């Protein structure tokens, strides 16, 4: 809460100084993990580069803080509001208030569930399902369409876990020779990925007949790589390793040939978000409800 107030206060003082610049209020979820702080930092740096007056509010994972921040943005009459929602529900009221004040709202990253879709202009985010599809497509070509896969799922019920699995399975369904033979949740952590892979190694007699490991994020895959090495297997050679995120430690694993491919989840996405907002402010026209930020697949040198 203190942080929100501080951010709002800072925002007021900034607004007083830069009168002509476009003013955007950005309500961020919090600063958990590696990805989100990098995303916040990029939004602030990119705003500076583009001459945007950014009011940044960190909700510390609480929707009530986020609602307060958005209402503060409305009271300050910002030109546009960008929200990275903590949760999908409970947005109708505050979005109506923004609409009444004629302030367009854009969503970044996660989705919201509102009855009236006109309450926000568009959502700009990566497509988790596309990430799963890219991983699946890479695996299909690397294995020539025949592959028994073990899967390390993210936290049960989380959007990236559900969507990445869906996208991956959508590609696999096109290849009769490809199937997931074991799947378990490693909770998106290195520790979890390692434990699950240890159990898979025992359950499949040292990964006999297993051609690939697909992990919903790199941390779990890094744990799986450790488990395989401790069991005397060669990850990246005995088994194809494909995952999502492209974190620095995964870059190193790719360079060493212990992993084969990773789909990048970009954190530098300010350059995709701001142009949509500023273009809309210049020329308000109907936009598609979802603008997808492209995903890149990175492969190891030898592949």
């Amino acid at each position: 809460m203190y942080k929100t107030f501080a951010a709002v206060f800072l925002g007021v003082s900034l607004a007083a100084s830069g009168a002509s610049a476009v003013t955007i209020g950005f309500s961020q979820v919090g600063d958990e993990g590696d990805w989100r702080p990098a995303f916040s930092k990029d939004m602030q740096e990119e705003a500076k580069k583009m001459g945007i007056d950014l009011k940044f509010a960190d909700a510390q994972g609480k929707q009530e803080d986020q609602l307060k921040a958005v209402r503060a943005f409305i009271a300050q009459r910002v030109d546009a509001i960008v929200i990275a929602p903590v949760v999908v529900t409970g947005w109708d009221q505050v979005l109506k208030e923004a609409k009444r004040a004629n302030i367009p709202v854009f969503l970044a990253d996660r989705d919201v569930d509102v009855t009236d879709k006109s309450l926000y202009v568009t959502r700009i985010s990566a497509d988790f399902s596309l990430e799963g599809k890219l991983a699946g497509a890479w695996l299909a070509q690397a294995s020539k369409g025949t592959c028994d896969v073990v899967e390390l799922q993210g936290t049960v019920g989380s959007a990236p876990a559900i969507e990445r699995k869906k996208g991956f399975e959508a590609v696999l369904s096109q290849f009769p020779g490809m199937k997931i033979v074991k799947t378990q949740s490693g909770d998106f952590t290195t520790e979890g990925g390692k434990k699950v892979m240890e159990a898979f190694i025992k359950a499949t007699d040292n990964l006999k007949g297993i051609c690939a490991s697909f992990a919903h994020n790199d941390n779990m895959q890094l744990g799986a790589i450790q488990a395989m090495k401790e069991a005397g297997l060669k990850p990246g050679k005995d088994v194809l390793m494909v995952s999502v995120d492209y974190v620095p430690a995964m870059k190193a694993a790719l360079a060493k040939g212990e992993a084969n491919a990773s789909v990048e989840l970009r954190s530098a996405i300010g350059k995709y978000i701001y142009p949509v907002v500023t273009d809309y402010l210049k020329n308000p026209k109907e936009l598609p409800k979802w603008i997808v930020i492209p995903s890149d697949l990175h492969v190891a040198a030898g592949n």
Partner: protein
Amino acid sequence: MTAPLPPSFSGRLRELTSHRATWPLLALAVILVVDGFVAPGFFTIRIVEGRLFGSLIDILYRAVPTALVALGMAVVIGTKGIDLSVGSIIAVVGATIAWRIQEGDPHFVILLTALGVGLLCGLWNGFLVAVLDIQPIIATLILMVSGRGIGLMINLIYGGTNPSFTSPLLQGLSVGSIGLVPTRLIVFAAVFVALWLLIRRTALGLFVEAVGGNAAAADLAGVRSRLIKYSAYLISGLCAGWAGVILTADTHTSDPVSVALYIELDAILAVVIGGGSLAGGRIYLGMTVLGALVIQTLTTSILMSGLPPEYNLLVKAVVVLFVLLLQSNNARNAVLALVRRRKR
């Protein structure tokens, strides 16, 4: 005086059913038998990369951190206390290890520092509970809530997020092996024996149980209950410190947000399955280890079973309920009564 009759069969049975190890062992056996059917080769043990390898070894291997934490928890619960901060202590220890390795300290010094951090956390908890007389659940909640944040702050000292490291000494203690045996099992055995000697071969165990049973009475009898409580939290902090060393060296990264998440709940559960009472006054170290084994066997079984992960927690809850019902005299008597009525 008549000579004592030779114990009848039913008498022996009663003796057996009333022994506290019987029911947890039975539960463990049931889970293992189910595993034998669900996962072929569950009981196979081979030698891979110069050490023992197999699901049963995995269970022992993976149970070590929970069992270590549970041992400390058993002592704290013996004083009628509770230590919710153990997971956070592990996070702080992990961050400290990664940080000091980055700074280039000699690795045995880092091991001592890590255990020292565990003790320091125990000192803090003990101060709140024994000196300030704050209720244990709240006192340890403070470190539970703040510890992971402290871990993140330590990581930020040198700008690392999930920093990874290599340390032959620490990794040797965690994932290495001496001969065929994983080193962490030896570490655990050493901690267990040391704690057992401390609790059962000195008066400390008796004092802890006296303080847990009735602190005021113990005080009147000349036991310094504050000091006893203090030492219980120190022991718990040190045990969590060891668990932190093993877990951190296992993945050789520091991940304060998620390392050992909810381990305090598994540890408390292990103590309770082992016959400990949250009302204090008892310490069963060996039984607590058995409790930790039941929990880890269950966890490993779920991972091996091929069950969709959506059911993990549900299955765990049902089996834990089953184990606790087995241990409950009232539940067993009710079932027996029901069976007898049917027969009639």
